[in-house]
């Protein structure tokens, strides 16, 4: 985009007049398949999309500004509300940044618990994606199977360790909030064992369904160059065939000890974005099994004072969240609260690629593409 042609006012971005050719459709903010309060201003010619403009900000809560008035442990609560489908990884990413600035050593048990809950969270998040994507394409049953059955199991597991089902505030600076309850690890192991079968079930129900493949194969293709130019990360980038994963490229926690593959696609169409996520669920299961084998009893929290001041300076912690590279950039002036915090939200950045990704496809494909990018509006608007 040329900087001189950037539109200034809302009227320029979203013309009120009907376009010369075709029709102007405002998809959202109250539309069943925009997954929250997103509005996409689309002009169509017949069934073909000629331009698309995402219009965001309906869910803006000024998280970054709020963080400047809170102490570091209090900010973890705010991060829960970003990507509310993957609150564990949000907590973790923020803690990574602060721990880096503090220079604390995390106990090994805490690291393993973090990986277990992080990967469980990834599975839960992809379950939501799978279910809602099924609804976008018109299949209703996968939603109630993935969202209502498997994700509930994971949420039950999370409820046992931290008491909350959506906003956990479980991963704390220096470790995790509490040790796992008795018998929890066995439950996780049972769940993992069952989950292998459930993923095969998804494959028969949706992944290799001819109609589903027809709707998603070769639709909304994205080249690696385009993905990198827009800053797309996560499964969306990997689907284009570009091998990039923070867990491998910049290992955090104990990921360097884990054995896992990075599933990549070939041409970055909707089906591959979907398939990469399904395969990632399998890799996550593998990692959870490894952690359960290696985890030992011990401390779960590093020794930290009640009130601490982070040394003056800046820190950046990032990790592979279910939706991509989630980063927290923190500037500290030595006071109990950060001077400035910035969140590199993968959903927000992936969403930007939509305006190029949608153009040229049919109206029905818009929904397929929008769903396959898998955004969470809580994170987009922050």
């Amino acid at each position: 985009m040329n900087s001189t042609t950037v539109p200034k006012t809302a009227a320029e971005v979203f013309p009120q007049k009907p376009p010369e050719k075709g029709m102007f459709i405002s998809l959202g903010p109250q539309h069943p398949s925009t997954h929250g309060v997103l509005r996409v201003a689309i002009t169509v010619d017949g069934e073909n999309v000629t331009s698309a403009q995402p219009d965001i900000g309906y869910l803006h809560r000024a998280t970054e500004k709020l963080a400047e008035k809170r102490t570091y442990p209090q900010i973890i609560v705010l991060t829960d509300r970003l990507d509310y489908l993957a609150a564990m990884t949000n907590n973790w990413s923020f803690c990574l940044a602060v721990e880096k600035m503090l220079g604390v050593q995390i106990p090994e048990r805490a690291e393993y618990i973090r990986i277990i809950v992080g990967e469980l969270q990834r599975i839960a998040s992809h379950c939501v994606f799978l279910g809602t994507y099924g609804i976008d394409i018109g299949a209703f049953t996968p939603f109630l199977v993935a969202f209502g059955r498997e994700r509930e199991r994971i949420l039950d597991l999370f409820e046992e360790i931290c008491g909350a089902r959506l906003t956990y505030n479980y991963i704390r600076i220096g470790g995790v909030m509490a040790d796992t309850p008795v018998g929890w690890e066995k439950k996780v192991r049972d769940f993992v064992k069952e989950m292998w079968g459930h993923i095969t079930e998804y494959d028969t129900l949706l992944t290799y369904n001819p109609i589903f493949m027809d709707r998603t194969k070769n639709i909304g293709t994205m080249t690696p160059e385009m993905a990198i130019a827009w800053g797309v990360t996560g499964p969306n980038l990997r689907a284009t065939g570009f091998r990039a994963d923070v867990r491998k490229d910049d290992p955090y926690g104990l990921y360097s000890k884990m054995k896992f593959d990075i599933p990549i696609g070939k041409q970055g169409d909707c089906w591959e974005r979907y398939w990469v996520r399904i395969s990632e669920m399998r890799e996550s299961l593998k990692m959870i099994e490894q952690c359960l084998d290696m985890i030992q009893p011990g401390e779960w929290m590093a020794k930290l004072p009640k009130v601490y001041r982070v040394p003056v300076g800046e820190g950046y912690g990032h990790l592979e969240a279910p939706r991509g590279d989630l980063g927290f950039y923190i500037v500290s002036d030595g006071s109990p609260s950060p001077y400035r915090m910035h969140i590199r939200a993968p959903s927000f950045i992936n969403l930007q690629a939509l305006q190029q990704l949608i153009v040229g496809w049919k109206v029905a494909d818009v929904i397929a593409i929008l769903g396959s990018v898998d955004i969470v509006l809580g994170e987009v608007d922050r």
Partner: protein
Amino acid sequence: MFELGPALSHLFQVMRSFATSHGVSPVLAILISKIIQTNIIILLVSLVPMLLVYAERKVSAFMQARLGPMNVGPWGIFQTLADGIKLMFKEDVVPSGADWWVHFMAPVVAVAPVFVCYAPVPFGQGLTPVDLNTGVLFILSVSGISTIGILLGGWGSGNKYSMLGGLRAAAQLVSFEIPRVLSVVPVLMWYGSMSLRTIALAQQGRWFNIIPKWFIFYPVIGQVAFIVFLISSVAETNRTPFDIPEAESELVAGFHTEFGGMKFALFFLAEYAYVFLASAMATALFLGGGDGFLLPNGIIPSWIWFLLKTFAIVFLFLWFRWTYPRLRVDRLMQFCWKFLMPWSFVNIALAGALVLVRMR
């Protein structure tokens, strides 16, 4: 054991003779008995959708690892009734951009033809309300009027999504009407009649005393015709995987986005009544109507056989809906014009050859 048809006609006979013996003019008696018969059909058409809605909710629930409605009545059997009452008392909202008359007429036009369509269906021995000579053609043509209702709904709502839904509906329904009519042609050729009752009766008998002589068991032509008829019936009733006109994730709710309360209920009624009608047609055309199998004749009355088979096909409809994703518009059209149409033409040619062989 208990055939409903003779019993009913006997009942009407008794009632009519009772009335005439008490000084009611015979014309009036016939007229009144006709009105009562018509009302029985109307009652049936109104009750069947309620049953189907309940069946749909329960079947989908069991397919999705949940229970479905459980609170209103035992196993939630009165849930549909409660919903119906709720819909009746809802405020009738007409959007300000809508065309009032068109908005009002749309559900009426969509639902009215259904009642007429049930007339030539042979529900069992002696249970054909009106044995029309052009029964099959009559049902196929009159049910096409409902499409106009959908178009009116799309236009009258003053909403782009509704309009798109209406346009898509028009394209889809006109296209799938053709393979639907063509798939029935082999049946009509073979039995040489368009009356559903005659066709259903002609399918009695057994090959080798085991296989029923239903049309679906005729090699090749029977199966192809049945499959094409079933697929295009699913498309004609706007159900997943062909629910493009009301695709909820794309067009919000398509042509009935702006309809609430009783108007919405009427659209709903029409959809389910058509599902039942299509299943009943398939039963009469391909599954031998009220002809029983396995058990010796007469143990189970024909009307129960008919309903059993019909509900088996209704179950297929539900099964499709809760398993398949939605097709894309252009793929849908391709499927209709490039797959269903050629195969039904081939099937007609095959059936013609078979009819010739039989004549020799």
